[in-house]
């Protein structure tokens, strides 16, 4: 059964007020970043408003993953500012970064699971590390069913297929009811049908009020999403962030 077709509201995933200074949940202001002497971005700006839906496209190596990592303070900007929920990311100490991560659900292309823990334990990990492990018991089963992994709860990550792993990663990203969901090539390793399922889940989360930022080179998925969501499409090219859309 397709989870996207059987969506139902999950208790803690409902709409809630986003607490942040200003109007943006994440804001990149005149951002510059590079590896060594090679500048990847220069004076790049982006604002993610609460409840917005963004696609980020670009060729391989354009810097999509780097841009996402800057958005959740996994990297620090060389120049310019990154504001996460109104706070200057450069001024956040390590604990503050950890706290901000609890408001940002991240879905990686390679999922990044702890292979010695079951899928259920991996999905519950954000609650566990924030000292809310007991809350997991109530929501976990519902969430597993929501992403269609109820039967795989006790399996280890290596035992799952690529699509199942991606759905589990999405479940882990949303279990703490984050304000923002950042997904890096969430459909990179799955077939068309599975990519549509995952997209459906992300659109549903957006309708619940979550801000969504998806990095992808899957233009077909972006075209398919256009019918269901009002998304802003951005393209990274030559270190600049361009508005795209009409040609897609």
């Amino acid at each position, binding site marked *: 059964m397709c989870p996207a077709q059987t969506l139902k509201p999950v208790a803690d995933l409902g709409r809630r007020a986003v607490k942040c200074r200003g109007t943006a949940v994440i804001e990149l202001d005149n951002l510059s970043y590079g590896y060594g002497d090679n500048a990847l971005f220069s004076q790049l700006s982006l604002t993610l408003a609460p409840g917005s839906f963004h696609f980020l496209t670009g060729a391989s190596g354009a810097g999509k993953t780097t841009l996402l990592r800057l958005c959740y303070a996994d990297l620090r900007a060389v120049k310019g500012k990154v504001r996460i929920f109104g706070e200057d990311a450069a001024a956040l100490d*390590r604990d503050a970064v950890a706290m901000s991560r609890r408001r940002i659900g991240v879905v990686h292309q390679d999922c990044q699971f702890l292979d010695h823990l079951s899928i259920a334990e991996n999905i519950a990990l954000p609650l566990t590390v924030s000292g809310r492990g007991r809350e997991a018991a109530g929501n976990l089963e519902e969430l597993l069913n929501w992403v269609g992994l109820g039967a795989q709860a006790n399996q280890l990550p290596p035992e799952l297929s690529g699509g199942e792993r991606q759905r589990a990663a999405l479940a882990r990203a949303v279990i703490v009811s984050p304000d923002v969901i950042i997904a890096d090539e969430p459909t990179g390793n799955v077939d068309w049908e599975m990519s549509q399922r995952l997209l459906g889940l992300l659109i549903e989360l957006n309708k619940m009020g979550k801000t969504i930022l998806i990095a992808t080179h899957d233009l077909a998925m972006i075209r398919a999403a256009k019918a269901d969501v009002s998304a802003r499409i951005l393209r990274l090219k030559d270190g600049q962030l361009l508005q795209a859309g009409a040609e897609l």
Partner: protein
Amino acid sequence: MRPLLELIIGDPQADRAVPQTGTTARLTVFVAAVMAFLAVIALAISLTTNRVAGLWADELARSATLRLPADPATADALLLSALDVLQTTPGVNSVRALSQDEQRALLEPWFGPDLPLDALPMPQLIEIVADRDGLDVDGLRARLSAQVPGAILDDHTAWRAPLLKAASRVRLIGWSVIVLIGATVAAMITLAAQAALAANVQVIRVLRLVGAKDAYIARAFVRRFTLRAGAGAVIGAIIGVIVVLVMPQGDGTDSLLLGVGFEGAEWVWPLLIPFLAASVAFFATRTAAFRRLREQT
């Protein structure tokens, strides 16, 4: 205090977040056990040396020997004068003139059992035992020189000083060994913790990504290494105590090695070793973990 409390209470879910590493765990327990065993033995030797040296020094300090000239013509008169002086000296608890048999026994190791003591001009020895406050040796010497000419007072200073010095050295060596053992435990645990942290780079990365604070990640490692070191030290300390208990025992006055062990309140020390080992492991792992986490991200 709070980190210690959290360590004792523990968090099974946090513990499970970091996979077990069998070899590192076994090595940590083994090293802690060996070090605790050595610490117990070093403690036993150090404390025993301290105790026995103190006993010997106290006995020597409270006794003195008076030697009267070996002149048969004046021997009896000098003995009476000396006893009179000694019995009227403040701080003297008891005095006793050694019998000929006792003096023969003292000379027997050098001259053999058939020594014709009657044919030799032997000085008369008087054993003096001071009371708890001790006696005024200089004052006594002055009185003896005036009233018992030729009498020589030996207050055992020449014996006592090197004995106390040797005992002090042994005690210092013992405590140095214990400090070195503690430092070795800290170094070994730090290395083991760093190896475990390096082996779990990906685990740490995932935990950081889902919002784990450094303290949460560090706690999983700290708790594990602290408990391993504590458990290893308990095993080592128990074996050490058993070895000390089965060593030949004596009253400590004849031979130092016959009296190695713990007495009374000294038994607290071997009981403290597992706690000390666990504390060393706690701080070593915590320091290594936070440093590593800062470097990694």
